[in-house]
């Protein structure tokens, strides 16, 4: 299982698909799930379920371990947290820039 840092763009691309976002939500609520369990709840083929799970796994968002006959997948929160921090840092930088602009405009005497 890879614990390597997944770039946020990788994480956002993995989450940009409604089916994959749905799987993340189910894992968030239910703890774990297998390909068979996801397929039973989704209107897509088994091959499509496999492809989505592979993308989520490659983005580091889920990890599977063999339990009984099938792989059981769990959520890996780290890439989600790192992506949220990435967004947060950029949002804060913009807030500070806007604040400096506001301060600057307030300090300037009115033209004319």
């Amino acid at each position: 299982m890879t614990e390597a840092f997944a770039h946020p763009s990788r994480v956002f691309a993995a989450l940009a698909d409604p089916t994959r976002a749905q799987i993340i939500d189910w894992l968030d609520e239910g703890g774990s799930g297998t390909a068979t369990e996801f397929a039973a709840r989704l209107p897509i083929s088994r091959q499509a379920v496999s492809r989505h799970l592979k993308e989520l796994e490659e983005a580091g968002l889920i990890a599977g371990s063999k339990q009984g006959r099938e792989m059981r997948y769990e959520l890996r929160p780290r890439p989600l947290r790192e992506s949220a921090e990435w967004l947060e840092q950029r949002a804060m930088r913009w807030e500070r820039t806007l604040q400096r602009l506001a301060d600057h405009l307030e300090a300037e005497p009115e033209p004319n």
Partner: protein
Amino acid sequence: MAVNDRIERSIVVEATPEKVWAALTTEDGIKGWFGDIVEIDLKPGGEAVFGWSDFESSSQAVIEVVEPHTRFAYRWAAQDTSVEEGPASLVEFLIDVDETGTRITVVETGFASFPEDTRDYHFEENTKGWKSEMDDLAAYLESAA
């Protein structure tokens, strides 16, 4: 109440019957849209295996009809059984061409012969299954155009 026995679904694709035939009957073709586990001895009486490794699921089949570019059928064992032990259904693919394109029809019959406790489960699984699998078949055929 009538017993669920038959599933039928048709799609129309922009692909030649030859290409459709390859998608339905060759190992590479089948892996492109169906399961990733495929073994096939394409002749009447030949054995086949279709399965999905991520689902730890594969089923044995015995080919019944091989009419190139027109009709392909096999008896398909329910998961983890063999055609000999049963239960098994008959899966038939029909290919025909009309002015709208190439029509592919899948007909699966024989659920009435399944044990009562698992019949509805298999029928519902495969009804849903053929819907999404045929969508994938259409996408596979049209993307590889």
